[in-house]
């Protein structure tokens, strides 16, 4: 009898363990599906992007994936109507407010950072991931996924994922106190089987605009980049170290990328004498925070979708090894 009780108790323990693991695994599966969906699906839609000051801005997005190659165009329908086009081997940032076109080479980075950590424990030691229920967005049924950071060095996410495709139809970034710092909300979306390549062509007439392009050279991954951050929040790992010419910079720029699998921080290091000098201190573009300073005669900027203390921690801990 005692043995039977012990077996039953062990069984219950096992069941409760499995019960606790199953929802976490389900949340993790949805996260994996979402990560694939944003890259692999064809979609076009309109979404509202709410900036830091609470001002909503309407944007149009077209994303195309054909033969494993993806391209994207995002156009702001408000304000100055900026547009970004990622297609083929280049990224084009069109800034009508400054009559400037920024032309950059596209990096082949998908094998490096656009993937979630393979180890569930690795990700979940820094984030708590769980499903939060069902809802409806843009007239589609969605599952709500919540990702809560376990410290103040990264933001949290709430994602409303399309029940059928796992495409995020709404997303919120939250700070360490759970307050929303930025959100994206699709008001309409179409997910067709195909999208013509012509839909990715820039819609803004750039005649008379100044084009800033990098001198001809390809990013040299694995170049002898001796800069490293010696203090980084737990879970952030160096995933890329390259040196390349960039539009608007006179000298090659060293670029480090640190990622914890969800959040990414870029560190740009360039000569102090650069013509387009960068100021020092904090700045931000929506939820992307940046911190710039001069270190050992070089201009350093760290930026990422992380709280300000994270970019500053990484930037100030850089050493030239």
């Amino acid at each position, binding site marked *: 009898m005692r043995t039977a009780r012990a077996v039953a108790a062990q069984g219950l323990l096992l069941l409760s363990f499995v019960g606790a693991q199953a929802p976490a695994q389900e949340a993790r599966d949805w996260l994996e599906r979402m990560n694939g969906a944003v890259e692999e699906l064809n979609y076009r839609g309109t979404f509202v992007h709410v900036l830091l000051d609470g001002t909503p801005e309407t944007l149009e997005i077209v994303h195309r994936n054909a033969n494993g190659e993806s391209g994207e165009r995002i156009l702001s329908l408000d304000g100055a109507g900026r547009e970004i086009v990622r297609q083929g081997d280049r990224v084009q940032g069109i800034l009508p407010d400054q009559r400037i076109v920024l032309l950059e080479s596209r990096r082949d*980075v998908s094998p490096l950072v656009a993937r979630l950590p393979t180890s569930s424990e690795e990700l979940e030691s820094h984030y708590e991931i769980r499903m939060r229920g069902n809802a409806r967005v843009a007239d589609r049924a969605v599952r709500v996924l919540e990702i809560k950071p376990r410290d103040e060095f990264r933001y949290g996410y709430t994602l409303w994922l399309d029940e059928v495709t796992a495409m995020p139809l709404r997303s919120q970034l939250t700070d360490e106190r759970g307050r*929303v710092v930025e959100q994206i909300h699709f008001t309409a979306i179409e997910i067709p089987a195909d999208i013509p390549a012509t839909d990715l062509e820039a819609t803004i007439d750039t005649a008379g605009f100044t084009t800033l392009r990098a001198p001809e050279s390809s990013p040299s991954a694995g170049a002898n980049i001796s800069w*490293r951050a010696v203090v980084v929040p737990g879970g952030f790992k160096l995933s890329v170290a390259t040196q390349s010419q960039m539009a608007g910079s006179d000298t090659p720029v060293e670029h480090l990328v640190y990622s914890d699998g969800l959040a990414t921080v870029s560190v740009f290091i360039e000569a102090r004498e*650069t013509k387009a000098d960068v*100021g020092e201190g904090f700045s*931000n573009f929506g939820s992307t925070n940046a911190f710039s300073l001069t270190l050992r005669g070089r201009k350093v900027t760290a930026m990422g*979708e992380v709280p*300000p203390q994270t970019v500053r921690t990484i930037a100030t801990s850089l050493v030239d090894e």
Partner: protein
Amino acid sequence: MTEQINDQISAFIDNELSADESALLVRRFERDSEARARAMRYTLIGAAMRGELLDPHPTILRQRVAAALAGAAPISARVRTRWSERFARPLLGLGIAAAVAIVAVGALRVLNEASFAPGAVATNAAPLQTANDPTPQPSYVVPQEVDETRVVTPPTLLTNYLIVHGEYASGLTRTTVNSNVVGTAVESSERETAAAKPLPVGQEGLE
């Protein structure tokens, strides 16, 4: 963890609590590991914001705990304690400080401890102030620190950085980054004003 205790911890690190309040909070640290961990994280964030990560030891927190224990004497004097507790008390502060130092290992990953040699990293590191320093101490709570150092950077180069950065973003944040490239299309003067605003810490949610 309630908003109230978070505020108390911030005030404690900023040396703005009364001696009695500090003593109560330190007693809470003894039994509440989450509060202890939060105190450590606030200290580290403050250190990061002030460029003080050259010193990975929670000096400020140690000072606050030591001061709170010293200031708590009148309260504890009312309680008749056993000799073992009396002798243990001075060690308690060290124990708590050690405990919070252990938490630091989890919060920040130090990749190369040798690089913590003075002057090795941040060139703008401010010296640590002691609890007895009469100079008013800046707050260790993040928002104030952010406001003080915020400047406007030339938009074009930073926008270009953002475009390149977006290429490396995960599927989770790439649309956000690219929206930030086009979504900050305000006139220059407006942008400068917007960039000079405090970060959203303390701001109500957008919903």
